[in-house]
């Protein structure tokens, strides 16, 4: 899809009342609903490409996002869920003027309160009693769960890492600074611990019942992006980049390819061009169009901070 067509398609998926729908409406007249994930990625994609929303749409979407914030400070993934989830990190990735329009300090506090259930004291003691492993193993490094009171996984940890680094640069978080740094450090350790034997990342389970689990392309790219500029042993980074290159040569999913390319570029790799995804008759998801546009913008201006990075 050409860039202008992609931007047009994104604009067409704005839902009346604010927010973006995760996919195209397939039936004429079918009511469309918005999700926080689609909304954040679409808005970031437009911002990355210098596109602005009309004032009315911007206000409606800002209002729609603000209405997703729960009393505890986190954000529900779509209307009616009434539980804060990992999408809170996504909201904090939005451009600062939008972030400032929500109760962003509450969102940061909510995010800092969340950690994988496997790293809780109770679960670690139980683990030691069952396995006899006094080291507590990888459970010591707390990442983030998708849903409160569940285990940490690569995707929510990577997005939380990106969000908190961006928030740290707001310059108004001195009261959280120490805790943010502590959690960023733990998240980095978590991602390093969850690197698969093949060098990449999957959802976050490197071994199951003693069997090595292979990495996935999209999570490999996302983890590399999240670890950009962090103190990670170079051998780990190189293993990750090698895995990303292998995935990129084999996979044809636009979403996976663009995450791989964003990850590789963020780790200093120079790409001649973005890879061609599989030709498909199917309509693309909003998240796919958005991440494609974000990667194209990053490709056009290598070295420039992307919308996923601090100080954008």
């Amino acid at each position, binding site marked *: 899809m050409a860039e202008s067509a992609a931007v047009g398609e994104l604009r067409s998926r704005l839902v009346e009342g604010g927010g973006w729908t*995760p*996919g195209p409406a*397939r039936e004429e007249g079918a009511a469309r*609903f918005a*999700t926080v*994930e689609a909304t954040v990625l679409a808005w970031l994609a437009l911002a990355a490409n210098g596109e602005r929303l009309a004032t009315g749409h911007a206000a409606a979407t800002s209002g729609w996002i603000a209405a997703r914030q729960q009393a505890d400070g986190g954000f529900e*993934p*779509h209307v*009616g*869920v009434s*539980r804060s*989830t*990992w999408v809170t990190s996504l909201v904090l990735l939005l451009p600062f003027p939008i972030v400032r329009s929500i109760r962003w300090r509450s969102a940061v506090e909510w995010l800092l309160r969340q950690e994988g*259930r496997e790293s809780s004291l109770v679960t670690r003691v139980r683990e030691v009693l069952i396995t006899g492993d006094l080291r507590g193993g990888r459970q010591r490094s707390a990442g983030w*769960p*998708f*849903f409160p*009171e*569940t*285990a940490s*996984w690569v*995707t*929510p940890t990577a997005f939380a890492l990106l969000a908190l680094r961006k928030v740290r640069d707001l310059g108004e978080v001195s009261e959280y600074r120490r805790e943010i740094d502590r959690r960023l450090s733990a998240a980095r350790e978590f991602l390093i611990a969850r690197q698969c034997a093949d060098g990449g990342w*999957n*959802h976050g389970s490197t071994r*199951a*019942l003693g*069997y090595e*689990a292979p990495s*996935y392309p*999209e999570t490999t790219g996302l983890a590399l992006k999240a670890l950009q500029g962090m103190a990670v042993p170079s051998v780990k980074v190189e293993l990750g980049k090698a895995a990303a290159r292998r995935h990129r040569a084999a*996979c044809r*999913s636009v*979403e*996976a390819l663009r995450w791989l390319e964003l990850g590789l570029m963020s780790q200093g790799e120079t790409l001649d061009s973005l890879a061609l995804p*599989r030709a*498909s*008759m*199917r*309509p693309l*998801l909003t998240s*796919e169009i958005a991440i494609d546009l974000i990667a194209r913008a990053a490709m056009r201006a290598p070295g420039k901070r992307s919308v996923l990075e601090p100080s954008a």
Partner: protein
Amino acid sequence: MISINRRRVLLAATSAVAAVNCDRQRDFGERSRVAVLKHVAYDSGLYETVRKALVQALTPGSLRGKRVLLKPNLVEFDPGSAVNTHPLFVHAALEACLSLGAARVAIAEGPGHRRNAWDLADEAGYFRTVAGFERLFTDLNLDRTRAVPFAGPLQSLHLPVTALDTDVLVSLPKMKTHHWVGATLSMKNLFGLVPGGIYGWPKNVLHWAGIPECIAGLYRLFPRTIAIVDGVTGMEGNGPIQGLAKRAGVIVAGDNLAAVDATCCRIMGIDPHRLSYLNLADANRIAEEAIIQTAEAPRALRTDFALLPEFQSLRLPQQP
């Protein structure tokens, strides 16, 4: 010396419950009909076999005028393996439902680990095989949801409206072993209804709440569900992802998931009474006496699926 651990205690307890419930079952005389048909290849003949399986398993007219939702098992990007429900099998189920009078047949799935269901379906060959797939498919992970009461520690669960509002749900699992629960069949396939867009990838909230309890809870939430199991080629060993293909050459269908899964277990050489989630869900329905088998006898088609060492205790004893 016999070692006692939590699993043994659980197995003993559930078997006892099953035995009591089976007696009660015979008293009530309620029996489920399950059709078992041989089919050894993904070929054009599959369409007729799947249709026959449904005709034998269902009450006549039960699909007429109904909105039907097919729920295959899409797990991984590995078209050459036995990890996903075969696209031809899905298409055969779609055609069979239409031929039996369904008003509309749609397809939906919410994969548990990989986030892009459309990519998975594309790679698995669904677009090539099912004409207009893009109009028929819903990614349940990203669907609009509604909260429903849910037994156990979760108390309530958000589920996709596409699944909640359908007249008949058709579970189309692959016949596979599973490295946490022993076997994954039509009932475990219902995990794909739980939206990752809320609970994540994986749907870890179900693990913390108890996998058997959640499988049983979903089974009770969707009573209007029928099953057609893709056992043409299944998966054995370290399933549901890293196992090896197993040619079982069989299709199993019925309108009670517990009875269908128990029948599949017997074909796989697994004792269904030893699967805690089956006992928990509906112990009444899994005894042999509680099932009316049509077409082939499961015992005649038994082909033992390799089990991981941890699951050897599930093996069904050979019967004379």
